[in-house]
C-alpha cells in the first residue's frame, strides 16, 4: 500500500491532521470513507462522507487557503502539506513570533468606551472596548490573552470597518527573542 499524503489543516483555532490514501481519509486518526469532491455547479462541490451527503460552497483564496461554506457558515481553512509544514517549523522565527494581534473594528461605528490601558495584562475574552453600531452597544473582547499594546483610538471617535483599534501582545511576545538573548 502507498504511503498516505498528509496535510495539516487549520480551522479557526485548531489544526487537524488529514491523511489521504487509496482507502479513504483519516482526520486525526479517525477513518472516513469519502466520495468527492464532485463539482455540482460553479464553486459548489458535493461530498459523500460515510454515506452522508454534504454540499459545500468552496473558493480557493490562494495556495492552500479555502473559503468554505458549510451548514450556513463561512470558514477560512488553511491546508499545509507535510513538506511545507516541516520547512515552516525549521525556519528560525518559529511559528509563534508573528507580531502583535490586531484588534480591528468589526463594523463601522462609534467608540463609546475604552476599557483597558496600554500595558495592562488581560485574559482572553476580557472586554477591551465598546463600539456602538446601529444603536446597539457591542463589547469587543480580547481575542488572545496577553498584554495590551498600542491603543489607536479614544472614546468618541468614529471608526471604519476593519480599522485597527488596538494591538494585543500574546504572552510569547513578552519573551526575549532568541537573537537578542545571545548578544
Amino acid at each position, binding site marked *: 500500500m*502507498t*504511503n498516505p*499524503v498528509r*496535510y495539516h*489543516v487549520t*480551522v*479557526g483555532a*485548531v489544526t*487537524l491532521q*488529514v491523511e*489521504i*490514501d*487509496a*482507502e*479513504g*481519509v483519516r*482526520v*486525526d486518526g*479517525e477513518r*472516513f470513507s*469519502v*466520495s*468527492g*469532491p464532485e463539482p455540482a455547479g460553479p464553486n459548489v*462541490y458535493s*461530498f459523500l*462522507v460515510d454515506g452522508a451527503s*454534504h454540499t*459545500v*460552497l*468552496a473558493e*480557493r483564496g490562494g*495556495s*492552500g487557503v*479555502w473559503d*468554505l*461554506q*458549510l*451548514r*450556513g*457558515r*463561512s*470558514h477560512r*481553512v*488553511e*491546508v499545509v*502539506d507535510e513538506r511545507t509544514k516541516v520547512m515552516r517549523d525549521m525556519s528560525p522565527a518559529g511559528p509563534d513570533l508573528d507580531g502583535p494581534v490586531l484588534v480591528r473594528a*468589526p*463594523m*463601522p461605528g462609534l467608540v*463609546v468606551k475604552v476599557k483597558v490601558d496600554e500595558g495592562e495584562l488581560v485574559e482572553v475574552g476580557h472586554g477591551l472596548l465598546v463600539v*456602538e*453600531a*446601529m*444603536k*446597539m*452597544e*457591542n463589547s469587543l*473582547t480580547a481575542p488572545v490573552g496577553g498584554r495590551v499594546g498600542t491603543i489607536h483610538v479614544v472614546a468618541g471617535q468614529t471608526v471604519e*470597518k476593519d480599522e485597527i483599534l488596538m494591538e494585543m501582545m500574546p504572552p510569547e511576545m513578552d519573551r526575549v527573542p532568541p537573537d537578542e538573548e545571545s548578544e
Partner: protein
Amino acid sequence: MFDTVLVANRGEIAVRIIRACREMGLASVAVFSDLDRLSPHVLAADKAVRIGPAPASESYLRGDHLIEVALSEGAGAIHPGYGFLAERASFAAAVEKAGLVFIGPSPESIQAMGDKTEARRRMAEAGVPIIPGALEPTSGPEEAAETARELGFPVLLKPVAGGGGKGMRVVSDEDELPGAFESASREAESAFGKSAIYVEKYLARPRHIEIQILGDQSGAVVHLGERECSIQRRHQKLIEESPSPVLEPADREAMGLAAVQAARAVDYRGLGTVEFLYEDGEFYFLEMNTRLQVEHPVTEFVTGLDLVQWQIRVALGESLDFSQEDVSFSGHAIECRITSEDADQGFLPATGCIDRLEIPSGPGVRWDGGIRAGSEIGLHYDPLLGKLIVHAATRTAAIARMKRALGELVIHGVETSVPFHLRVMDEDDFGKGDFTIAYLEDHPELLRPSEGDVRLLALVAALLEHGAWGRVGAAGIKELDGRKLSAWQTSGWPWQT
C-alpha cells in the same frame, strides 16, 4: 375608505404588506432610500417613490415627507410596518390630521402603551399583573438605588420610551448602578430620543410568552393565542413558536383574558401584542407592542387567519366576523429570524453582497424575505434579512421540518444566523421545550461549530487542496504556484476511478 396604501417601511415587512394589498385588490406605493432602489419591496409594489438618502433619519423616519408622498400619490392610507415610525403617536396623529388612515391603533393607544411607566399604571388599574417596580420614571442614580434596595437586587433599568432591548441594563449590585444608569440613559437617548429610565425587579429565568390580540373599531377584541419567544439574545428575539411548549389551556385562557383586558384598557383597535414574562406558573405584563409584530406568521399558521389583511380590513372599518369561541388552533409553527449577524462572533453585525440565494420550499414552509441575489447588506438598517417559518402537526415534526428547511436555505456572501438556528434545532433542551430567556447563556456551545463540523471542514479542505494539486499532476512532476511537486503530491484521488 381607501384603495391605495403607502407602505412606510422596507425589507421583508414591506414585502409582506404589499402582498396583502395585492391579494385584497388594493394598490401599493413603496418608498425607498437611495440604497433600496432595487430592493424587493420596490420591485414588488405597484408604484415606488424615492424618499431620500441612505440614513433612516433622512428617509424612512421623515414622517412629514411620507405624508406628502402619500397625498401626492393618491394613497388614502399609510401602513407603518414595525420599527421606524410604527410606534410614534405623533406620526399616527399627523397621518390622521392630513385626512389619511393610519393602519394601526389610535395615537392615544400608542401614546399610552409607548410610555412604559404609564402603561404599567394603566395595567395595574385594569387588574393585569405587572412586574414589581416603579410606576414613575426615575430621577437619577440615587433614586434608582433606593428603589433597587426596596425591590432587592438584581434589578432591571429600562427606558420609559422604546423597546427591543435597547437601553436596558441588568444591575446585580449597588456598585454597578451608577455606570449602568449612565450607559442605559445614553443608549435610550440615542435610540429613542428620550433618556428617561425606570427600575423594575429583574426576573432572572422567566420565559417570554406573548398574546396576539385583534380588535375592531366597534370595540370587539379577541386574542389569537400565544407565541413563545424565549429564545432571545440581549432581548432580541431569535426564534418564536406557537403554541408554547409549557402553557396549559388554563394558563392560555388566563393570559388571553388579561391581554384582552389590557387592550380594552387603552381602547385598542387593530393588531397588537401583549408581552408577558412567565415564571413558575405566574405571568406578568411586560409591555404592549402597538403594531404588527415580526413574528406574526407563526400565529397565521396556527390560526389560519391572515393578520395583515385583518389589520387592513379593520382600518377599512370592517367588523370582526368571528368571536373568541370561533378561534381555534391547529398544529405547531416555528419561526427563525434570519439576520446578517455572525453568531460565531457573538452575533456581530455582518456586511456583504448576497451573491447566491436559494429559498427553501416544500410542505409547510414559508419564507418572508426582504433580500434577493445581488442585495448589498450594509449597516444602515435592521439586520433582519428574512424569516423562515414552518408549520407541522406537532412540535417534534415542526422542528424536523425547520431543520430540513434551514438545510435548504443558501445565503452566500454575508454571514447569517442560519448556523445558529441549525444548532438550536439539534439541541436537546430546545427539543424538550425546556428553556428560559437565559437559553443562550446556558448553551454557549451553540455559538461555535461542533467538533464534527470542524472535522468535516478539515476533510473537505484537504480533499479540495489535494485535488487542486492532483489535477495538474497527471503527467508527473508539474509546477504550481512556483513550486515543484513530487509524484506523491500529484496522485489525485486514487479511490475515484
